[in-house]
């Protein structure tokens, strides 16, 4: 009973957070737009204004851009990721055990059967994508299917099914857009100010109020993207813990996932189809070597030893 309740709750929480984040994202984007317009207008005119028409205009543009960007990412994200990973779809005849295990996990999760793909590499890894339970896909490497035993494979597929059932992909897509947009805007601010500083001396002097404002803007523009990135990574790590726990809720067998994580961690390596843009999707990060130190702040995944320790607490 606790089983379903937990991931149905996680799903509801993720839906709420997605909406909240979308609203926050739009607000941040609009706020940034307004700030730029306002600063520009106060730079060029002598009277100090709180309400700036240019700011309002830019705010509207930024808000539209953020909503549009989110919708496009949600609509095309999965397709882009799959083509970037160079994954080929497989049928039951080609990979019977992969197919069976995925079907078992989809039954345990009560979600429709996702599409299945294989990446042609001997590396051991897997990821899930899709912005709803109806358009989801699970991708496994050929090495994973060949190396793991049935219980281990079930643990890994359960983890990916956990991401699907918890609607993590949708949530992380919006988080990614938020972070991207903040970085973009910060970059725009820095460029605008750089350009503005060239003709400031000739234009006007002694606007010290504006000077402080510019300094604040620069500081915000430098630190906001870093802070946003740190939040994104923290969220990503939490989602990994949650997917591990959800996997065990499905399989009722922590030992399978523990043993799989041990093997995957030992064999972790970059392979064709993986880039910095997709490294966070995989069950074990193929690019970054995660240690206790990096996992405190800048890692996409928690340290594998820590994940295993938490699984043992679930009765492994």
């Amino acid at each position, binding site marked *: *009973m606790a*089983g*379903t*309740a937990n991931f149905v709750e996680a799903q509801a929480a993720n839906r709420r957070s997605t909406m909240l984040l979308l609203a926050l994202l739009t607000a941040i984007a609009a706020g940034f737009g307004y700030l730029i317009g306002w600063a520009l207008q106060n730079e060029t005119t002598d009277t100090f204004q709180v309400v700036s028409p240019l700011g309002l205009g830019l705010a509207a543009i930024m808000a539209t851009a953020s909503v549009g960007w989110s919708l496009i990412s949600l609509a095309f994200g999965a397709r882009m990721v799959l083509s970037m990973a160079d994954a080929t779809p497989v049928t039951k005849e080609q990979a019977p055990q992969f197919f*069976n295990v995925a079907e078992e996990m989809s*039954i*345990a999760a009560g979600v429709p059967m996702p599409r299945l793909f294989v990446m042609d590499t001997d590396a051991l890894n897997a990821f899930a994508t899709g912005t709803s339970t109806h358009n989801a896909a699970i991708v496994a490497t050929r090495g994973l299917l060949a190396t793991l035993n049935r219980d281990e494979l079930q643990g890994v597929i359960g983890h990916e099914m956990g991401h699907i059932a918890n609607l993590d992909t949708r949530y992380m897509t919006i988080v990614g857009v938020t972070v991207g947009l903040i970085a973009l805007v910060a970059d725009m601010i820095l460029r605008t100010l750089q350009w503005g500083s060239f003709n400031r001396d000739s234009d006007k002097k002694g606007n010290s109020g504006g000077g402080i404002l510019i300094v604040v803007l620069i500081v915000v523009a430098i630190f906001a993207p870093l802070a946003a990135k740190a939040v994104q990574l923290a969220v990503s790590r939490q989602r990994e813990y949650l997917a591990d726990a959800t996997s065990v809720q499905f399989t*009722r067998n922590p030992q399978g996932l523990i043993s799989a994580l041990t093997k995957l961690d030992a064999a972790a390596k970059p392979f064709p189809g993986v880039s910095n843009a997709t490294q966070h999707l995989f069950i074990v990060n193929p690019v970054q070597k995660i240690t206790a130190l990096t996992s405190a702040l800048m890692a996409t995944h928690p340290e594998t030893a820590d994940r295993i320790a938490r699984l043992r607490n679930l009765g492994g």
Partner: protein
Amino acid sequence: MTTWIVVGIVVLIGLWLIMTYNGLVGGRTQTQTAWSQIDVQLKRRHDLIPNLVQVVKDAMGYEQETLTKVVQARNNAVAASGPAQAGPAEAALSVATRGLMGLVESYPQLKANDNVKALQEELVSTENKIAFARQFYNDSVGSYNTRRQTFPAVLAAASLGFGPAELFAMPDSEKEVPKVALR
């Protein structure tokens, strides 16, 4: 003024009834879908077992006691009707099936046979699917029953025609270790 307050209250009660009704329908549909999933997998197991028995029989050259037991348990399970009868019959079939798996494991010539291997994978998967479908069905029944018994839905559930759903129990003969007769 008073009229508007009354209208407002009636609208609120109406909205609440709609939401409660939809929530209960959602829960009931989920339990029904989950039940049909169990049904599909049980049928699939009934279809697979004769194939595996046949392949094992061919590979070994004679019919063994474990095989007759499996066939009998399978026929009993097929004949059972309704969850009350199906539960124990399917549980007995699970035990017999595990006996068959044990038999396959202990005969190298069976383990190496490709047909046996493929059928074994199918049967293991079907067993798992039954277990997971049962787990999901019982979880769904649990949350549906909780929902219709909690306040305030409990005030409306019975009069809207939402009865309690039944758990699917397979009595715990599952813990029993199957004996494999090596002839």
